[in-house]
């Protein structure tokens, strides 16, 4: 059991009669990258919100390194090593790049926040932007800053909600390979929601497919790709 850094058990989020997520079980092993795919409205982002504490669960449990964190808020979960990026870029617009990443490192109790921030910024090729106010960055750079805020402070689990949203094909493929290398190097487990199938199948160790708030398939990329239900529900004939 404790091999899993993250476990979602029977997670459900209902809004009135709408079952956005309805009884999802999912696990993440150390160092693993799990891709989360499914049509729009399948509940992928809602699951991310549930795991990170942005939304309260209607039912179920979230375990982080074996510890039940269901009752904790996002701040406490982050302090226990659960980190996330956002689908809609979420950064500190009026603060210089380095200052905000360093602040995030400091809040994670890193012994040398400046050095850690510098490291992460270098890995995401933002090191020359340290003194720039975030609002003045280009879109792609702001996406990477969002990632930097999640990566700093050595989290054990990283939840990425469409990190490539709005990037060009080349940019997203570069970032994808970069992410995989980064996850390996920093020994962080990743839960990745992404629309770009090439990216998801390219870098994930395992894939979970959502439909209407439920998991319809889960396994290694080849098996998922071959699953007839997945082909019918989501991938269509092009996969």
């Amino acid at each position, binding site marked *: 059991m404790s091999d899993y850094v993250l476990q979602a058990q029977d997670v459900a989020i209902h809004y009135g009669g709408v079952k956005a997520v309805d009884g999802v079980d999912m696990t993440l092993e150390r160092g693993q990258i799990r891709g989360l795919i499914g049509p729009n409205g399948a509940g992928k982002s809602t699951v991310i919100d549930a795991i*990170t504490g942005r939304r309260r669960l209607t039912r179920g449990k979230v375990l982080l390194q074996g510890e039940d964190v269901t009752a904790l808020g996002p701040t406490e979960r982050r302090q226990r090593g659960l980190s996330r990026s956002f689908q809609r870029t979420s950064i500190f617009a009026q603060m210089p790049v380095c200052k905000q990443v360093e602040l995030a490192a400091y809040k994670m109790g890193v012994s040398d926040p400046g050095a850690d921030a510098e490291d992460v910024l270098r890995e995401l090729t933002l090191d020359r932007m340290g003194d720039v106010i975030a609002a003045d960055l280009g879109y792609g750079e702001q996406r990477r800053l969002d990632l930097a805020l999640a990566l700093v402070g050595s989290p054990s689990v990283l939840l990425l909600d469409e990190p490539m949203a709005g990037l060009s094909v080349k940019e997203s493929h570069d970032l994808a390979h970069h992410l995989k290398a980064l996850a390996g190097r920093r020994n962080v487990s990743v839960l990745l929601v992404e629309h770009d199938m090439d990216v998801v199948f390219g870098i994930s160790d395992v894939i979970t497919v959502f439909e209407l708030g439920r998991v319809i398939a889960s396994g290694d990329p080849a098996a998922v790709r071959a699953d007839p239900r997945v082909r019918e529900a989501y991938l269509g004939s092009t996969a």
Partner: protein
Amino acid sequence: MSITRLLVPAAIALAAGGVFAASVGSSTVLSLLTQATIYAIFATGLGVLLRQNGMVSFGHATFFGTAGYVVGILLQTKAMPAEAAMLIAVLGIAFCAFLLGLVVVRVPGIAFGMLTLAVGQMFFLTASRSRGLTGGADGMNIDWPSTLFGAEVSALLKPGPMFALCWSALVLILLALALLLRSRFGAVTEAVRDNEERARFIGIRTLVPRALIFALSAAVTAVGGVLASLNTGFVSPETLHWSVSGVALMMVVVGGTRALWGPALGAIVYFLVKDVLGDYANHWMAIFGIGLIVVIVFAPHGISGALLRLASGRAAAKSGAGTAPLPLTDRSHHE
């Protein structure tokens, strides 16, 4: 920014205030500037709230007026020396503001403004109607003792020393704020202001920093209120009225919050304009109103923002730290 770059201007400002107070003979000019400086402290407090929390208060006169009342009532009881009463007024208001802040800073945008307005009017009405305690609508005289901090009060109340005292208080407050806000606490409050949700997701508990800024803002404004009660020896419900909060807000908008000293500059400009245009008595506020519109349209960061841009050029202005655009024109970062 090194500390020297803060200490040197502060020392120069302190010395200049002293020289100015000693060399200007006109008591009219000095008392006008004393009043302007007191309101500069008031506006600085209000500006801190806007700059670090991105929140607009329509009830800050509460802290300004209440400070005078607390000093007045404590002196009436003769239970403690005046110095202690002044200290209790400022610290007590800061503490109460912190508790109030824990509730009101959770409320976003206009609703926060309305809450502060409601609290302010509550204090205004209480002071107006409690004749026994506050003298009601007539206000109350404050029995200052004959000496304060070892100085003769009668000498202190002369225009020159009074201006020097208020000016020094303003400069020291600005210096203290600058030192405080360049610390980690300043960075935390900036992050919370920019994007509260993301702040939670990088491990920041956002409520207490916001309430602390609210308390800090109230404390600075309360210092202005204590000095006002010393300057006039009198406090009345008018100092609690929402229109006083409104005037202070105008000073903040005119001065801008891009620089810490922006609101103070706005207050001084306000009083100078008021004096110069005073000949047009009834209409000066209309002229000031037009000026306010011009500032908001052409210099949304106020006079201080425009000055900073002139001083350092566009490139440097882009990378200037800790800038809070007026929420009137920019809400896009508060998703």
